[in-house]
C-alpha cells in the first residue's frame, strides 16, 4: 500500500479547512466539475502535472472555474 493512503491531513481547499484521506492531488480532483484549473500555494499547477503532486499539511489549494466577469 502506498504511503500516502489512509494518512489524514488538513489543507486549505478553496479557502476552507479540509481533511483528506489521501495526499495525492489526483485523488481529490474527481469531485470537481470540468472545466477547472488548479493553483497550489498560489502557484499554477498545469493539468499535465496533477498526477505527480503530493499534498502536505497546511497547503492552500485553489480550484477555479469560469464565471461571469467584466
Amino acid at each position: 500500500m502506498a504511503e500516502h493512503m489512509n494518512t489524514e491531513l488538513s489543507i486549505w481547499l478553496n479557502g476552507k479547512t479540509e481533511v483528506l484521506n489521501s495526499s495525492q492531488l489526483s485523488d481529490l480532483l474527481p469531485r470537481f466539475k470540468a472545466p477547472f484549473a488548479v493553483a497550489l500555494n498560489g502557484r499554477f499547477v498545469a493539468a499535465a502535472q496533477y498526477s505527480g503532486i503530493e499534498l502536505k499539511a497546511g497547503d492552500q489549494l485553489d480550484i477555479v472555474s469560469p464565471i461571469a466577469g467584466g
Partner: protein
Amino acid sequence: MQTELNIYGETLNSRLILGSALYPNPALMQQALQLSGCEAVTLSLRRQAPEQQGGEQFWQMIRDLKLRLLPNTAGCHSVQQAVTLAQMSREIFQTNWIKLELIGDDYNLQPEPILLLQAAEQLLADGFEVLPYCTDDLVLCKRLYELGCKVLMPWAAPIGSGLGVLNPYALRTLRERLPDATLIVDAGLGLPSHACQVMEMGFDGVLLNSAVALAKDPVLMAQAFSQAVSAGRSAFLAGAMPKQDFASPSTPVLGMPFWLQEAP
C-alpha cells in the same frame, strides 16, 4: 477601417467588447451579447463551489455564443495573484489573451501602476498577449507599450461608476502620443454618448459591462452602444470641422431680401 479592431494581429468585426457580468439573468446576457454584434466577451475565474448551481449553465451559454474570450484577472492585488490567475485562465480558455487587472485601491478600484508593469512584463515573457486595464496616465501607458503591450485599456472613470470621461485631455493625449497602439477605453462609461465621445477621439474600441447589464433594458442598451461606437468611429474617420468662438452663417448672405444698398 470602420469596423475592424486589431488585437494582437487578430481582427474583430466590432469595436465593442462587452462583459458577461451583472445581467438580470443569463438569457438577457446572451441576447445582449448577440444583438450588440460584439465578437469578444470578458469573463473570469473563481473558486468552484459544487453546491452552487449556475456555473455550468453560464459556461455553456458563453460557449454557444462562439465569441472570442477575454479572461480577466479582476480582484487581484499582487503580481503573483495576477500571474497565477492568468495562467489558470490560459489553460481553461485556451487563449493567450489576458485582460490584466491589478487593483491598487479598493475604493475606486484604481489599477496599481507599478505592479501592473511588473505583471505585464512577466506575462509577456511567458507568451501572453496582455491587455492591461490601466489609468489614463500617459507615462504609464508609454511604459506598458514599450514593454510590448500592443493593446492598452485605459479607464474613462472608475469601474462601474457610469460617470463617463472624467479627463478628456488625458485620453486625447494618449491617442495623440501613442498613435500605433490599439487603445480601448475600458471602464466608467455609462451612456452611449460616452462611447461615441471616445470613438470620436480616435480610440480603437470600447469595453464595457455595467452600462449595458444594469440598464433597464440591457438588450436595447447593448444595441444603443453598438450604434454609438459605430457612429463615433465614422465621425473620427470623417474628420470634424474646426471649432471657432464666433458664429458663421450657413445660409448665404448674398441675395438676402429686404436689404437695400445705399446709393453710391
